[in-house]
């Protein structure tokens, strides 16, 4: 077993700009108001993830989950501390980001695969699988602009879920598309997990986390509040209280 993610006191600060134009800034200065503020979205977070682990990242809205995920995926750099990863980080993040609406679904698949870091040969190898997964039939050769939102989502998912990753991150409810498509996604996620790929999964759904993960990290206002067993993490968040049977984040209840 080797370490695939290592975060060492990772901190990311954001500047909140209250005013943008010169006039507003001047007025605010005159009145003695603050023109901007800084806060730590992720605050001194440290943890390590071993290969093959499946980690659920939980926390209330605004607790810094997405920022931490962006630090892991490399979209953002920490202001202090270090975040190291091994191998390719990919997964269900921003599926469909970078689609060119005027270009056909097929061309968008190639482009999207390249954006996610796949080489030409790799895309060619996986193309059939991706097309099969998206299952868009004849529509694959029409411009994406004519797609329904569900079709667009399937296209994005089909590429993202078929990228071979060493660290697979998922930041989206898997509740896109119809029931058969959802089932297909779940199936594929299970395969990824069984392949020994490290999974980093953001969710609000205790059911989905219980099913997918063997460890939970809980963020509280940017700080790491809990790191450990799934059940304990969920009760730490008090997510086990009240009814949570009806949350449908795709992976959880719907089986």
């Amino acid at each position, binding site marked *: 077993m080797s370490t695939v993610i290592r975060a060492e006191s990772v901190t990311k600060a954001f500047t909140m700009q209250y005013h943008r134009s010169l006039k507003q800034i001047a007025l605010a200065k005159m009145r003695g108001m603050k023109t901007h503020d800084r806060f730590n979205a992720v605050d001194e977070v440290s943890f390590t993830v071993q290969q093959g682990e499946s980690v659920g990242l939980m926390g209330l809205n605004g607790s810094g989950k997405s920022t931490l995920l962006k630090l892991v995926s490399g979209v953002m750099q920490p202001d202090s501390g270090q975040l*190291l*990863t091994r191998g*390719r980080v990919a997964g269900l993040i921003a599926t469909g980001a970078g689609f060119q609406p005027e270009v056909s679904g097929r061309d968008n698949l190639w482009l999207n695969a390249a954006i996610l870091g796949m080489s030409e040969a790799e895309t060619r190898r996986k193309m059939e699988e991706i097309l099969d997964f998206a299952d868009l039939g004849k529509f694959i050769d029409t*411009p994406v602009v004519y797609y329904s939102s569900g079709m667009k989502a399937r296209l994005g998912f089909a590429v993202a879920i078929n990228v071979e990753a*060493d660290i697979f991150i998922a930041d989206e409810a898997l509740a896109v598309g119809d029931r058969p498509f959802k089932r297909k996604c779940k199936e594929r996620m299970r395969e990824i997990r069984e392949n020994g790929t490290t999974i980093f999964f953001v969710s609000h759904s205790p059911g989905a986390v219980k099913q997918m993960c063997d460890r939970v990290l809980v963020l509280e206002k940017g700080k790491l509040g809990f790191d450990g067993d799934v059940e304990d993490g969920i009760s730490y968040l008090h997510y086990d209280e009240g009814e949570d049977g009806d949350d449908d984040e795709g992976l959880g209840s719907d089986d």
Partner: protein
Amino acid sequence: MTISEERQAPGRHRADRVAEPSEPTLTPSSHNNGLLEVFRRRYLLRLLVRSTVQARYQGTVLGWIWSYVQPGVRFCMYYFVFQILIGRGGTEVYPFAIHLICGMVLVHFFTETFNGGTRSLVSNRSLIVKLPVPRELFPVATMLVAFWHTMPMVVITLGASLILGWTPSLVGIAAGMLGLAIIGVLGLALSLLFSVANVFFRDFSKVTQTLTQFTTFSVPMIYPYSLVEDRFSRIPWVADVYLLNPVAEAVLLMQRCFWVPLTRDPEAALVEQMPADLVSRGLVMLALSLVGLALAQVWFSKLERRVPERL
């Protein structure tokens, strides 16, 4: 297996790879290799450029023909107005139409690169804030798309010149390529500089728009370079300052390629209409543009880390 090899073929032999002692090491999750990273991911760059080009004429019946029709019509219009109607240029700047289009080609390339490049980060916001792609990719892609759309104009210039009896010369062609290279490098440098500034203050795209409005008039295109020398013959440094503009220099190089050989007396045109040491000046400009590009990259890398949160 190094990281870059790993990126090429991750997980292909997952089972044997675990056993291998030389698997990829832990590295910082975000890379910051600047333009080198763009070069490393040139396959993505190629797809991005291709789909942007495709998108422009999507849904049209004539498709790519439009990229010839538009500049072609513009050229005919200018030719009619300036050469036939006003009689601009007379014998001195004959053939004026070629003189003009040499300028138009490069001004088009420059303004499209600079304007589009400045907006490129903001307009690709959805990608940049969510996926780890080298951000330099977008200004570079804009420059290449602009180049792609400039090529039809070069072809039209070439065609018109051939009809007028143009014979290519080695120096001329080299000069023309040098002109294109200067604009490409300079446009990219300015795009890097302004695109990242535009993320912090959207004013910069307005600044770019304002600046590019001057371009047409700051280059010898609707007037010959000799006019600048003549009008300011008493204050010679004006022409020197004028020539410090890399775009003007590039336009002159392009005219050296197509227009000079077509004038009544090319030998005289070289002396009277072109500055001395044109080509060596051009080489210096290209070197300066490259230095500018390096500096722009330094500035870009410095500000880039704040880009995702400010978009």
